[in-house]
């Protein structure tokens, strides 16, 4: 791998869902990159296309109705989109892997968890049963499941939500992937457990140096773990930035709106400035900027033609808005 190459580079990705009622353009030209040891957060609401992006990278899009209609997914310089499904499947596990929000439905209820983790080694590394099980126990200890040796034969329902998520993580990192995509890994968990899982992910990343893509809707979770953040809206990245300046000075009105609309634990009595309206219907996107019907700053140019292109506003910060960087002065 040469120095100039990113671990993962997504260029102008397009995904559409062909549905009964028409074509839903779930992703419209998404580009980003990720380096080793780096954590990128993809932030968005439901329907923003954040999970679809992850599935497209993994190559596990439900097709039909979902189709990748353009763009490239470069992993260590190889365009995954050009690979045959079989060749691509070989990447899943040893090179890239993924964890999901709902650990209970992601685990097979009729097999012991240890067996399920061991299966990873049996299939990919052709290990024998006892060696694989021994590795499974090591992994369970690595993700800090207490009494791993005794619980290796337990079934998924015998674990709590947090422990199940740990098991999912153990399976995902079993083959030392270069890239881990975590799709809302803590959304279904209680706050105290949430913190444990985020700590665990951070620790595992430091140890192995893998790249981490964290998909979430929670501005708080992102703040503590991500290096960079990409904000998605209606299938586009509307703003992409290093983490600190984004919170201090959001460039896109949507990001600004989100930050103003979440209540903060450390502040009492601030008014919540809600973003009015609803995310757009993907089957009937408004002309111009997809955010314009809900935008406080929208003017004529925003309401017609093509959506504004993503431009670099400051070093390391891009935004897709005509007023990016000038929101403070703009008339609200």
């Amino acid at each position, binding site marked *: 791998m040469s120095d100039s190459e990113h671990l993962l580079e997504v260029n102008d990705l397009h995904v559409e869902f062909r549905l009964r009622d028409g074509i839903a353009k779930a992703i419209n030209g998404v580009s980003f990159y990720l380096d080793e040891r780096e954590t990128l957060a993809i932030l968005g609401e439901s329907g923003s296309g954040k999970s679809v992006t992850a599935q497209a990278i993994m190559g596990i899009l439900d097709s039909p109705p979902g189709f990748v209609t353009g763009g490239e997914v470069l992993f260590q310089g190889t365009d995954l989109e050009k690979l045959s499904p079989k060749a691509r499947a070989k990447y899943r596990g040893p090179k890239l892997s993924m964890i999901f929000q709902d650990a209970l439905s992601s685990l097979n209820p009729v097999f012991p968890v240890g067996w399920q983790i061991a299966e990873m080694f049996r299939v990919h590394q052709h290990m024998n049963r006892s060696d694989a099980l021994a590795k499974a126990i090591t992994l369970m200890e690595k993700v800090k499941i207490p009494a791993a040796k005794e619980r290796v034969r337990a079934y998924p329902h015998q674990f709590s939500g947090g422990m199940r998520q740990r098991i999912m993580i153990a399976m995902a990192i079993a083959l030392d992937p270069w890239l881990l995509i975590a799709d809302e890994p803590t959304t279904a968990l209680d706050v105290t457990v949430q913190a444990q899982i985020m700590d665990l992910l951070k620790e595992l990343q430091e140890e192995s140096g893998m790249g981490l893509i964290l998909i979430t809707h929670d501005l708080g979770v992102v703040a503590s773990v991500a290096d960079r953040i990409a904000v998605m809206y209606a299938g586009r990245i509307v703003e992409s930035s290093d983490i600190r300046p984004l919170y201090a000075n959001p460039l896109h009105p949507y990001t600004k709106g989100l930050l103003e609309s979440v209540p903060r634990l*450390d502040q009492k009595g601030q008014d919540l400035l809600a973003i009015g309206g609803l995310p757009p219907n993907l089957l009937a996107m408004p002309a111009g900027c997809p955010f314009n019907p809900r935008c406080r700053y929208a003017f004529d140019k925003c309401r017609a033609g093509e959506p504004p292109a993503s431009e670099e506003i400051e070093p390391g910060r891009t935004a897709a808005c005509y007023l990016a960087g000038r929101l403070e002065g703009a008339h609200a």
Partner: protein
Amino acid sequence: MPDVILKAEELVKHYPIKTGVVRRTTGKVRAVDGVSFELHRGETLGVVGESGCGKSTLGRLLMRLEEPTSGHLDFDGVDMYAQKGRDMDRMRRDIQIVFQDPYTSLDPRMTVGDIIAEPFKIHPDVVPARKRKERVRELLDLVGLSPEHINRYPHQFSGGQRQRIGVARGLALNPKVLILDEPVSALDVSVQAQVVNLLDHLQRELNLSYVFIAHDLSVVRHISDRVAVMYLGKIVEIGDDAQIYEHATHPYTQALLSAVPVPDPVVEESREQIVLTGDVPSPANPPKGCRFHTRCWKATEKCKTEVPLLQLRGDGQGQHLSACHYAEALK
């Protein structure tokens, strides 16, 4: 002395665990295990806790959707659990509930108009039949929906709009108290604020009292005047906003607060986190003594044997109700 509208005394709800062919009772889940509090007129009492702490069961007890195992509930001077039949139905006009999931709390086969008009069909004397349609339109308008949507079905609305419909139904009978069971946790971030603002606005407009049940401490802080923290069926600490959020004395409250990430990387970096180990024990078999002792860094022998009472304990400035033998605010 503030005007108390709802007063719970030692509410208990145990669910029997039945096993075997003959369905013998072999144990019980202590979902709510001795909860007492007062709700003042016009205020919002937040109830927070993790899943399994009994907060939703508590909500259902307050609505008498479940019969309590023991305890009293005094609503506006009347003992709710002693009411029967018609008297109980009458009482339901004054206390209503909004559920968490806007996708399951509305009957998918009814139009919005029918859903909001259902309360009038059950209590026909509240609004005369010919004025009902008009009242439904008023209610839709009140919660920020277009009265033209009256003939639509719930699945044609987004989550936030559905939750508004749920609120409209809750308000139809002009209740005095609204139980809000996780009303925004199923909603998207940008929509949450709309609903929170709506609830705020309605409270002022209609002089409502809220019991706001949620797991999101930030939202609870925003909307609540006072907050009760629950753990394994018991209230471990209760107090006003500053007492809980600035001077929490119970270690569980402290850990809970510290676990909530703040959407600000600068704050996040400087923040000390207390990361609790382990999971919440099963409410079928709660720890003896203080229920939190298995996860508490302060626990001593005393905590393992002696149940700490919820009583006034000092927080460095004043005192508020806390159930820890070693109650002390963090420095």
